[in-house]
Every structure is written in structure tokens, then in C-alpha cells.
């Protein structure tokens, strides 16, 4: 279970963004989780809820958005979703595919709470 390490990286980003925007609190986090990112969304939420205690995101909810594995064939340019871990072009059979999405975890957006005065 490495979800705790992943969540630690997520909090580095949250703190950085809150500082940039002069925010006091983070109230929601949307995280895109690739099917081949190597992490389980439910475990990420559990780890997030453990980690957030006493932080600027104490009240925040982590919303995970599943992202399928999308690839492009370098031979014939066909784009398709891989759902059975067979990395071969469904159109021409070529094995040379570019992975377009589904292997990483991206913070899509966060909701910040700022003091009204500071934002004016």
C-alpha cells in the first residue's frame, strides 16, 4: 500500500497552491486517477482522510475521477481504449502504441477558501 506516499505528494501540491492564492483552507480536491496509475481510488480516499487531520485540508473531500487507458497507434494513427492490457492496435495489429492517458494521477482542480478581503 503506497497510497500514503502518493497522498503526501498531493499535499505538497495543495500547500503550494493555497500559498499561491493566499487561501486559508482547501475544501475540495478533484483527482484524475488513471486505470494504470498503480493506485486504488478507494485507498487514496482512505489515505487522504487519514492524512488531512490537522492540515489546511481538514474539511476537504477527495473526489476521484477514473481515467481509462487511451492509446494511439504509431503505425496507423488509430485511437482506442485498452481495457484488457493487450497493447496491440485493434485496427492494424501493430504493437507500437503511444499511451495518451490512464497511467498517471493528476490533480484536476481544487476548491480554495480565501478571506474575502484578501481576494478584493
Amino acid at each position, binding site marked *: 500500500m503506497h497510497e500514503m*506516499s502518493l497522498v503526501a505528494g498531493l499535499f505538497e501540491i495543495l500547500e503550494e497552491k493555497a500559498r499561491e492564492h493566499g487561501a486559508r483552507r482547501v475544501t475540495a480536491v478533484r483527482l484524475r486517477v488513471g486505470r494504470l496509475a498503480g493506485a486504488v481510488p478507494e485507498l487514496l480516499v482512505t489515505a487522504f482522510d487519514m492524512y488531512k487531520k490537522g492540515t489546511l485540508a481538514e474539511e476537504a473531500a477527495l473526489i476521484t475521477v477514473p481515467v481509462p487507458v487511451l492509446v494511439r497507434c504509431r503505425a496507423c494513427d488509430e485511437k482506442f481504449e485498452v481495457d484488457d492490457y493487450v497493447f496491440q492496435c485493434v485496427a492494424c495489429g501493430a504493437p507500437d502504441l503511444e499511451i495518451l492517458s490512464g497511467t498517471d494521477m*493528476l490533480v484536476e482542480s481544487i476548491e480554495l477558501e480565501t478571506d474575502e478581503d484578501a481576494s478584493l
Partner: protein
Amino acid sequence: MKRKDVAVYEDILKSNVAAAAEVRRRMRERGVLTVNLMSSPGAGKTTLLERLVEKLTPPGRLAVIEGDIETERDAERLRAKGVPAWQIQTGGACHLEARMIGRLLDELPPDLDFLFIENVGNLVCPAAFDLGESLRVVLLSAPEGDDKPKKYPKAFLTAQVLVLSKADLMGLLPFDPERARREALEVNPALEVFRVSALTGEGLDDFVACLHRARAKLTPEDGRHA
């Protein structure tokens, strides 16, 4: 109080990605091939390393970083072979991260050809963390079963080399090396596959040749390593 949504689009592994890029840059600059060895526990990573030491250059030209949850045992096994070896005890963590490697780089001997990083035995978590390696090798041993590539696809997808290890046991177990190879190639058609026995020496020379080729390709613009 006011709430606002901020678009971010940043990788949650970005600090590891940056640390890995730094390790890769420093090692390539020195002409060192850094290899990240991954497998489940007991697949034979350390035994393979012990045999590689005998095959690869004078032992002083390679170094090993061992990752385990506890104990210094693996590093001691390599030191007994005359190899400079460092042990990272993760104290419970199931994988190594690039920063742990970066901290050790200044301690490495000056003249190195190969740096092997033996990851924590685990086919799941280590696959998500780039350590700054130039070659990722995954081991699958005969007793584990030939059906693992589809069950743990990320490890096989992100590796460049697959070693089917404990080849000496293959005739004794219901392990079909062809099925293992086929499944692994479905997940990653670019994988180079070797069948190796660290006990009998079968396949070792081919694997060693692959390591030399990978090192030669590291810095093609630099004649010293071509």
C-alpha cells in the same frame, strides 16, 4: 470568506519525477547505467546480482543499492562479493522513491559502469515510482506462476526487460515460460525477455550482453561509452 475553484493539472508524483530526473541526469553524465530491479519477494533478485558481479567487469566498477523493509542482509551478501553496497531500510514502506536514491549518489565510488538498485520485493507499488533508472528490469520466477503479467500489468508495462528466473526449476513446475512470455508481450510488446538460471548460469551471458548494450546506448554522443 470566499470560495474559488482553481485548475491545477499537476501530477501528484511531480516531486518524485523531478528527483528521478536529477538522478538520471547525474548518472548518465558519468556514463553509469542505472538499473531498477523489481519483482515479488523471493524471485531471485539478490542471487542474480551475486552472479552478475562475477560476469560484469571488475567488481569495483559496479555498485548496488538494496531496498528492504528491514535488515542489512542483502547489502552484506553483495559486500561479501567485494561490491560497494548500500542498504536502504524503508521501515515499512513497500517501495523505494527517487529521493532515497538521490541522497546516496555522493557516496558512490567515482569510477562506475553500473548501478543496480534492488527495489523492495513487491510487484505492485515500486512500479509507480521512477527512481531515475535508465533500465527497468522485472523478474518473474518459475514458482510464482506464468499468469502474473496480466495480474500485475504496471510492472511489466513500465519495464524494458523481463527476466524469467529460476529457469532450472521450469521442468519441475507447471510453469510455461512461453505463456509467461506471451502474456508479458501482450502487456508490453517492446519487452526484451530472457530466461535465466542464476544457479546453473543458463541465459546469464545473454542478459549480461543486454546490460552492456543498454549502457553503450546511454550516451551515443560520447565516444567513451559507445
